[in-house]
């Protein structure tokens, strides 16, 4: 028997901040003291709070340690594991918390969260099926085995679950269409091709709780009458793929996958397909083409995959998070419980990835209907460095920006769409006054332009033309007519592109023009980028009032454009400055400021 379980967050965020080394140091310390067998160390799934990683949660004490370094492990073992006292120094602290946070209830980041989809992440060992089963896993599936097919679809419909991948189509209806489609052979496909930059929800679910997705797919297979499934996962997610493989092998060993499952006569086989890096494969018909081994190009619908999908057979495609919700709905009383959370049109919870200029970056799960303000300021802790909140980008390259005046908007599918953004898969990227909205639109367009598959002309040519205009504006050669041209191009692409990705790629432009038109106008008419991003449209100067002559900026400047004696005010030679911003990063007094570019005429006078 173990005295304590130590859950070390082993998700990509914490691994990147060195949780592997922390685990090694902990193991070495336990071995040195000869007490290794008393404690169980688990590389667990995502705990969510990436900002303060690496994280260890100790059970049953429920103590949350964060920002750990390998050198902290000796003290942790000595004081907590042996001495039984909490190491205050390693607890979560923040300016807005009076009592250092011990566990989820006291840490503001966790207070408004509801753990449904992430119910097991960070709590179980994702590589051991028994731990999933102990937490009620596969119970919903065995219940579904005893139900009639239409009854299963009906429960999913009544719960009000909508697709978590972007468009929010009612899941139960999709299942029903596939169920009634004629055909002996049918497929279940899980879309794990999470391609939106700034989004890592699906990866965290797969890494932290792979069996929840498998169980969801099994229930779907049972409901629609499919005997085979595919999980299409990005090859860039090696850990997720590894854990899925382990989970599938264990489920097969337990007779939960394969022939005649639990002696019910139901057969189901599951395959993993590794994607090869193409954003367009997130679109369902392109994804199916890719599984078939072709170029991942979309095709017109109808026929919808429910009628003619993978290899021409009826196919039900859902996203990772959608499947992970299914076991909750299909358990006894699950429908009512699921539908009790959320708004009229959007039920349940949604997992969001918080990133950008937000204090608490990480993964969170919140009830639908919560306001954007609560997510950004209560869960997310507000803007980094207390700078001014400018906007939040929701839905990636298909989504849009939500400005400060809409912070009290409740998060549900319809209100986000109305505001010009989309729920998308759940990436929320926060921007402050140093983010240029024109540059942001240019960034997204350069992404969609590169990723456009080239099949239809509106997307292939339209993204190129829109990108050219945006680049011109960012370079300072924008023309007053550009805004109208952009808008009219954007609307024609929305109307005429072949697939969902093409139709939504103008969204970042339309929403930034809608809410930040003045920034575009400033770029075009005044050649000024107030955020200090578009290099041709601003220059740096050193504020003589606040400069203390510490010389840091001069030392860090890669082109030696800054001069000045120690303890004297420094100056920037504009003819050398490349506006790389290195000086801004190191200035302790915030003395490096942005100003309009002085024209030649002004300089010579």
């Amino acid at each position, binding site marked *: 028997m173990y005295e304590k379980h130590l859950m070390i967050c082993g998700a990509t*965020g914490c691994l990147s901040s060195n949780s592997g080394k922390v685990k090694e140091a902990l193991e070495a310390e336990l071995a040195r003291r000869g007490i290794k067998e008393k404690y169980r160390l688990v590389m667990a799934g995502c705990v969510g709070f990436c900002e303060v990683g690496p994280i260890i949660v100790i059970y049953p004490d429920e103590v949350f340690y964060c920002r750990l370094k390998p050198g902290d492990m000796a003290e942790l073992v000595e004081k907590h594991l042996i001495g039984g006292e909490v190491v205050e120094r390693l607890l979560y602290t923040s300016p807005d918390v009076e009592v250092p946070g011990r566990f989820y209830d006291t840490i503001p980041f966790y207070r408004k969260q509801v753990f449904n989809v992430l119910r097991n992440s960070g709590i179980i060992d994702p590589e051991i099926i028994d731990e999933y089963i102990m937490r009620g896993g596969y119970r919903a599936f065995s219940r579904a085995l005893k139900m009639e097919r239409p009854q299963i679809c009906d429960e999913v419909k009544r719960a009000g679950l909508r697709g978590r991948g972007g468009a929010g189509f009612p899941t139960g209806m999709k299942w029903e269409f596939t169920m009634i489609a004629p055909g002996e052979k049918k497929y279940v496909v899980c879309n794990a091709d999470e391609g939106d*930059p*700034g989004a890592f929800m699906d990866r965290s679910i797969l890494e932290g709780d792979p069996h929840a997705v498998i169980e969801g797919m099994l229930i779907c297979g049972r409901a629609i009458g499919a005997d085979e499934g595919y999980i299409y996962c990005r090859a*860039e997610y090696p850990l997720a793929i590894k854990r899925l493989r382990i989970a599938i092998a264990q489920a097969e060993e337990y007779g939960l996958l394969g022939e005649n499952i639990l002696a019910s006569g139901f057969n189901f086989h599951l395959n993993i397909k590794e994607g090869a*890096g193409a*954003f367009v494969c997130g679109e369902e018909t392109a994804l199916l083409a890719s599984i078939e081994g*072709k170029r991942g190009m979309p095709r017109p619908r109808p026929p919808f995959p429910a009628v003619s999908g993978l290899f021409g057979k009826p196919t039900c495609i859902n996203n990772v998070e959608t499947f992970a919700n299914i076991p909750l709905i299909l358990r006894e009383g699950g429908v009512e419980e699921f539908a009790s959370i959320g708004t009229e049109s959007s039920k349940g919870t949604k997992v969001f990835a918080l*990133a950008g200029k937000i204090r608490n970056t990480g993964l969170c799960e919140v009830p639908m209907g919560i306001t954007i303000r609560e997510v950004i300021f209560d869960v997310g802790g507000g803007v980094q460095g207390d700078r001014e909140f400018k906007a939040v980008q929701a839905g990636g390259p298909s989504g849009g920006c939500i400005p400060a005046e809409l912070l009290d908007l409740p998060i549900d599918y319809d209100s986000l769409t109305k505001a010009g953004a989309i729920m998308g898969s759940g990436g929320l990227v926060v921007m402050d006054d140093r983010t240029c909205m024109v540059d942001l639109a240019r960034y997204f367009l350069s992404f969609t332009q590169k990723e456009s598959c080239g099949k239809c002309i509106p997307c292939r040519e339209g993204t190129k033309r829109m990108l050219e205009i945006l680049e011109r504006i960012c370079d300072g050669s924008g023309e007053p007519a550009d805004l109208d041209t952009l808008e009219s191009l954007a609307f024609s692409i929305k109307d005429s592109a072949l697939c969902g990705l093409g139709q939504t790629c103008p969204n970042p432009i339309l929403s930034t023009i809608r809410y930040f038109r003045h920034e575009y106008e400033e770029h075009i008419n005044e050649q000024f980028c107030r955020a200090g991003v578009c290099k041709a449209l601003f220059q740096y100067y050193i504020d003589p009032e606040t400069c203390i002559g510490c010389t840091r900026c001069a030392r860090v400047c890669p082109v030696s454009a800054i001069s000045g004696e120690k303890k004297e005010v420094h100056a920037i030679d504009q003819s050398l400055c490349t506006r790389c911003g290195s000086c801004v*990063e190191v200035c302790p007094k915030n003395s490096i400021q942005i100003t309009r570019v002085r024209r030649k005429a002004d300089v010579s006078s």
Partner: protein
Amino acid sequence: MGNQAEGSALNGELDLSQVDALVEPYLDKQGVVIPVLQKIQEHYGYLPRPALERAARRLRIPLSRLYGVATFYAQFKMMPRGRNIIRVCKGTACHIQGGSKIAERIEEILKIKVNETTPDMKFTLEEVACIGACALAPVMMINDEPHGRLTPDKIKKILASYE
């Protein structure tokens, strides 16, 4: 370009007998093109043309189809790559935290552009859509090692630690 010279030299010594073994498990199956290309790339580090020709013959799939698929997906490389692969994240979070400055600085130091390899085959510089380590933006990966919370002036030291 140094790359091409290097590439053709490698092609000269290419052991193609491996291709048959790599392709073997996929004969007479459907939807095999991507996994076959992934296997070939795993073995050779990129997709050498002679290997594709041989695989196409074995699989009885036109070379044009293999080529069409290979050039469609970002994962597949048609040129040999360096010993160390630098992947600079181009995700939204990294972009607004100054990610483009990171790639620029690497380009300056290594004197190559994105998707190029240094003449000594030490580094290949690539960009990826998102690594998913947004909390540590801006981020890059060198081989399988992530480096986070980067600033341009940290780059030189990091690159120097690779052989």
